[in-house]
């Protein structure tokens, strides 16, 4: 009852605030059934299901919103989907077993983690050509890029390092040891820090981008849950840099962290085995993929309350939202 009232109050507040919220397409990769589900961010309804390659995981969208890129891991390729027609219009030479990637701020370069080959492949998106391959640690996964595009960070899950790569020379400039199974790298919008989640270690390491030193290790504690069940994966930081959201895997919750105090302010209960996160462009909603319950959850970033869960495909993995 009480929660209802709270939700209602939130909705009223949102209406009064009334920055017109856009309807954006939300794209979710479903690892187990080789599809991408399209969800309308305003109605929160599924509008379309696109058949893609095998084992789709990493997913991102071009800055103009025209092209969707999907890692088809078991096809060893990155597929390009036209967002207007929902047709696959081409592929990028990603190298074997692409899992996650990040697009440069200028949209011209895609950096792909090749999990099976201990490589990061650098791709010229326009020419669809491999620029270079950078050897990194065992099982590269997390990919983050600084807002100025100068520094790319890759995490290797078995080596347990964050590799800082200079994007002009394509050289590794620093390797920072973090806790077990680092999964994700997210820069703060001002580029001062990169946040690295460690799935098995159960922590998030905050690394200063200038000194390459760990300035803080964030831990999580949830009453009634054993520590092994808390497995941080996806990390997103708000545009104003004030709040970080951390998906906690089998803990079925998203943690809200104050980026100034590094305190966890709240745990939001979503679906089962929550992995990746994405904001809507207006920042009003955060969307989580919940792998084992086959759904995504829309979260109101003002109240940090879940709004609605939407069933998508089998084992939803990644999520990206079309720009305005």
């Amino acid at each position, binding site marked *: 009852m009480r929660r209802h009232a709270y939700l209602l109050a939130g909705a009223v507040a949102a209406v009064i605030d009334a920055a017109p919220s856009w309807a954006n397409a939300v794209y979710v990769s479903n690892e187990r059934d080789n599809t991408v589900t399209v969800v309308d961010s305003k109605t929160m309804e599924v509008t379309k299901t696109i058949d893609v390659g095998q084992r789709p995981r990493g997913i991102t969208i071009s800055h103009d919103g025209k092209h969707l890129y999907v890692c088809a891991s078991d096809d060893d390729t990155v597929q390009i989907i036209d967002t207007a027609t929902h047709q696959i219009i081409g592929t990028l030479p990603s190298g074997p*077993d692409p899992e996650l990637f990040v697009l440069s701020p200028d949209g011209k370069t895609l950096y792909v983690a090749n*999990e*099976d080959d*201990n490589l990061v492949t650098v791709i010229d998106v326009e020419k669809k050509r491999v620029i270079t391959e950078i*050897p990194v*640690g*065992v*099982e590269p996964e997390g990919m983050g890029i600084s807002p100025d595009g100068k520094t790319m960070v890759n995490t*290797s*899950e*078995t*080596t*347990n*390092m964050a*590799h*800082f790569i200079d994007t002009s020379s394509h*050289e*590794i*400039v*620093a*390797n*920072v*040891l973090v806790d*077990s*199974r680092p999964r994700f790298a997210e820069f703060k919008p001002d580029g001062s820090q990169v946040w690295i989640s460690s*799935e*098995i*270690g*159960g922590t998030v390491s905050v690394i200063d981008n200038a*000194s*390459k*030193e760990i300035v803080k290790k964030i831990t999580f504690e949830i009453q009634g849950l*054993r520590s*092994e*069940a808390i497995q941080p994966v996806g990390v997103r930081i708000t545009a104003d840099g004030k709040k970080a959201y951390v998906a906690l895997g*089998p803990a079925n919750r998203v943690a809200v962290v104050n980026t100034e105090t590094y305190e966890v302010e709240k745990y939001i209960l979503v679906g089962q085995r929550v992995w990746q996160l994405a904001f809507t462009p207006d920042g009003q909603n955060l969307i989580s993929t919940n792998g084992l319950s086959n759904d995504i959850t829309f979260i109101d970033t003002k109240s940090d309350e879940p709004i609605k869960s939407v069933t998508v495909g089998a084992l939803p993995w990644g999520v990206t939202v079309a720009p305005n």
Partner: protein
Amino acid sequence: MTMKSTVPNTLVFFVACFFLLVNAPQPMAQQNPATKPVTEIRIGYLRAYEPQLALSVLDIPPEDEGVAGANVAINDNNTTGRFLGQSFSLDVVRTKREEDVVPVFREMLARGEKYVLTDISAKQLLSIADLARENGVLLFNVGSTDDILREQECRSNVFHTAPTRTMLADGLAQYLVWKQWRTWVLLYGSHEPDRLFADAIRRAAKRFGAKIVEERLYEDTGTARRTDSGVVQVQRQMPVFTQNLPQHDVVIVADESEVFGSYVPFRTWDPRPVAGTAGLIPSSWHPASEQWGGSQIQNRFEKATGRRMLGKDMQAWTAVRILGEAATRTNSNDTAKIEAFIKDENFSLAAFKGQKVSFRRWNWQLRQPVFLGDGRGVISTSPQEGFLHQFSELDTLGVDQPETACKLN
């Protein structure tokens, strides 16, 4: 017989050629590999190997079982080592089952081995454990499931990445109890390992509230395996062997020696599921496990070896990775530092099992989930939901601290 197998890593080799073998100081953020001296970390692997028989040709252990897992981990460690100036290599020594291993172990000591994986019998392991300690050598038991090595005969310098029989039996029992299949019959073989596994099953039944309503011993009389006449006989023999049993839910088989166990499924008098060393089998790993990033290690393993990864491969991989992790995080090959790191209460490792694995500090047994699988895939993993523990649910598997007979000095 001694053979030295060094996993090639061209880059590391090159770097090793150019720079002195010095212990690098710990940098805050590690710089370009080319500017670093290389520290060499050698790992020994002592194994008793003889070709083994099995009732199904699919179950004959590959010749490189275990060693292949160690080699993949050496490669993994070297990929990481590239960034830190560390190079790992493996020194495999092969002996026989009943042989005295002291002479070959002394040769390993003479070569300066400080870390040795062992896949030998409990008796062989005990014959070198104290000699190892006197020489400051850490042993990693990757092969023996004998509980006694973690209990009465535990040692402060012997770590165990192989699970114990009691861990395996408990993992299986939890699942059967969760399924409400609580009434068991136990068929066990006449060899020592079969009897030990049967003991572990009896203990598990008591712990988790299952009931063994009848036990039957299958004497090994030296019957032919996998021959035409054998199969005909088996089809007549197994139903008779399992006739007139009291009402039961599951048939548990304890036959590590592969004398009759694999013949039991689908041949029992009553139509009942079979578990234990045949049917639903508990193990430290399953060749079809893809969960928790498992497909990554499986792909890597298959690419390197041309076959699927087995339990012993995972046990050896884990031991080499533990050493790699310790060397990486201490940025050292110093035995004292590495031992202290592994023995620290916060030590843990990611091993594709859905949660971190760590050591029981009272007997240096690796606490780890137990996979339950048949010949095709993973059916479940234990600990099962609802089996609670005040410290770690993984400690619901096997002998727990309050019951341990181990006294580490």
